[in-house]
């Protein structure tokens, strides 16, 4: 048995035959040709065939992974039809009297270099697209069969890296897992693996040894471990893990559409956390009843300057509309501490976690805050939006916020811009907010407990500091007592309280939270059905 490892981008267990996927190393030879017309026609035919293949891939991707992921093949078709690209190939065939595949390879290099030289990361990445379409043409011209069509039974693919067109080409039911030697967690392949729901491991230290082909391999997508020729004991353990996995998947699927209610009839709102509008599909697929935390930072982090009201409005509106009337709680910007952006021009701080961040920026630089609030209120007209404010420590802050909110509403009313009533809530993530939660509860419509920061501030432990691991206790009684206190104070004022931090998805605490009377849990989309399972098995009266 040989053991390899990499980093996991999607969980699950796969057992099957290994297949080394090598790109067609199309070594193109330069040949002198006599009949220019015939060679030109060869190219034209290959181009038509490539366009057909791409159309096929587009339709397949549309069905398997959705429009957003399929678009790449539409773009590839457009690139293939680009006149500059074609002219270059035609010209080389004619003037240099060279074979079509060599003309394609040359042109490919030239165009890829042009993109690689651009000062924009996105455009630099397009060099790969040029190579992808050119490889396709060359494969057709040299009549080399794509190695993808070879395997008949489901396999675990091991490759250096995979281009999107390659990933999608695999028949879904023939693909057990993906292992690549390169790749990043945000690469197209990783995203597709998640969408296709198969285990994927990247940056694996496995060699592409042809000897491995056809051997039995086990991929543990949870740990990132890969076992080649597994021994009996490993096989046994992993088979059990696979069986558990399948059983759980099955079970979770059955939980879709079921209510979030305990055996003794207590209801809980089970929402999901998201970081950008693209995550909504995941929320809906996992059947969350709403979005309990929509982090608005992506708008600021992905931008080179302050995002405009219009840009923000579009993003919020899209999420509100896609959630079709389900609640969407959007947290106002939480920049600062570990999330910094150049154009905010924040000073270096000795202690950024306790520094100028989140609501403190908003209350100081009110124009930034107002722009976001205007966008949020405008979007409120398209769904059920709620707003929550991070890093609150005092009642005065909340009153200031509410005053600014009233100003924004008045401005919109004056401009006759329609908006709906929006629930306003605060994050409870500082010990101060916990201690004055009885006062805060009178000012807002809901609480959402951010356990990550709350734990860090309460225990005075930086979670990134590996040395402190022994001291850190996520279940520290101080935290649990704080949550209980916050819930009690919320209910005392007639408002609801939820948890949106990591602790909310801690299955060993779900019962405790239910007994405390927590009204809402907001967890990552993948955890929704797992939490639902526990809720439905819990009896809080016992």
């Amino acid at each position, binding site marked *: 048995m040989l053991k390899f490892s990499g980093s996991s981008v999607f969980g699950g267990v796969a057992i099957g035959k290994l297949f080394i996927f090598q790109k067609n190393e199309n070594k193109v030879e330069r040949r002198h040709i006599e009949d220019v017309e015939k060679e030109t026609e060869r190219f034209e035919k290959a181009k038509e065939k490539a366009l057909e293949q791409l159309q096929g891939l587009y339709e397949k991707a549309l069905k398997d992974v959705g429009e957003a992921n399929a678009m790449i093949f*539409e773009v590839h078709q457009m690139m293939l039809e*680009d006149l*500059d690209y074609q002219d270059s190939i035609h010209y080389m065939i004619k003037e240099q009297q060279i074979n079509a595949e060599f003309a394609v390879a040359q042109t490919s290099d030239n165009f890829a270099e042009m993109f690689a030289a*651009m000062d924009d990361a996105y455009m630099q990445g397009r060099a790969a697209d040029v190579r992808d379409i050119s490889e396709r043409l060359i494969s057709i011209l040299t009549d080399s069969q794509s190695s993808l069509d070879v395997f008949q039974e489901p396999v675990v693919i091991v490759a250096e890296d995979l281009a999107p067109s390659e990933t999608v080409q695999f028949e879904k039911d023939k693909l057990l897992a993906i292992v690549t030697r390169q790749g990043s967690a945000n690469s197209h392949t990783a995203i597709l693996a998640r969408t296709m729901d198969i285990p994927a491991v990247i940056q694996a230290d496995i060699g592409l040894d042809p000897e491995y082909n056809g051997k039995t391999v086990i991929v543990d997508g949870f740990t990132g471990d890969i076992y080649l020729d597994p021994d009996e004991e490993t096989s046994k353990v992993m088979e059990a893990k696979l069986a558990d996995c399948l059983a759980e998947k099955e079970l979770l699927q059955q939980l879709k559409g079921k209510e979030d209610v305990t055996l003794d009839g207590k209801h809980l709102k089970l929402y999901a956390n998201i970081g950008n509008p693209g995550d909504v599909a995941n929320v809906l697929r996992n059947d969350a009843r709403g979005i309990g935390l929509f982090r608005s930072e992506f708008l600021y982090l992905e931008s080179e300057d302050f995002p405009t009201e219009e840009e923000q409005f579009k993003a919020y509106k899209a999420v509100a509309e896609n959630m079709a009337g389900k609640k969407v709680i959007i947290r106002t910007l939480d920049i600062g501490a570990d999330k910094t952006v150049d154009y905010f021009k924040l000073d270096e701080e000795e202690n950024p976690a306790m520094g100028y961040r989140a609501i403190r920026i908003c209350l100081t630089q009110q124009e930034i805050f107002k722009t976001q609030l205007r966008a949020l209120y405008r979007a409120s007209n398209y769904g059920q939006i709620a707003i929550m404010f991070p890093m609150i420590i005092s009642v005065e802050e909340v009153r200031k916020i509410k005053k600014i909110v009233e100003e924004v509403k008045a401005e919109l009313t004056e401009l006759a811009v329609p908006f709906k009533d929006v629930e306003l809530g605060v994050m409870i993530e500082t010990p101060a907010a916990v201690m004055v939660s009885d006062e805060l509860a009178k000012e807002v419509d809901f609480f959402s407990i951010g356990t990550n920061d709350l734990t860090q501030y309460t225990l005075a432990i930086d979670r990134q500091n590996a040395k402190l691991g022994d001291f850190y206790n996520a279940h520290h009684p101080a935290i649990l007592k704080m949550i209980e206190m916050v819930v009690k104070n919320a209910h005392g004022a007639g408002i609801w309280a939820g948890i949106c931090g990591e602790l909310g998805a801690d299955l060993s605490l779900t019962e405790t939270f239910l007994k405390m009377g927590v009204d809402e849990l907001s967890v990552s989309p993948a955890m929704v059905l797992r939490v639902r399972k526990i809720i439905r098995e819990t009896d809080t009266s016992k």
Partner: protein
Amino acid sequence: MKTFDYTITDPEGIHARPAGLFVKEAGKFASKITIAKDGKEVDAKRIFGIMSLGVKKDNTVTLNIEGDDEEEAFTALEAFFKENL
């Protein structure tokens, strides 16, 4: 000849896909259509050319349209920019 300037508002600028869609739209007309940024002018019917301009948000591009159907092309392409970019 018809001409117009447009300042890109789409946060992603003219990415591959909008470039492709624009080429498709421009291809519907017989007129010669060019798009220029900072003095560099390319044929608006060629996707790689447009992408090579590297147009980002807040950049201003100039379109020049010349030919028999320039009126129609002008209306259609201006609408395309406003709607998609």
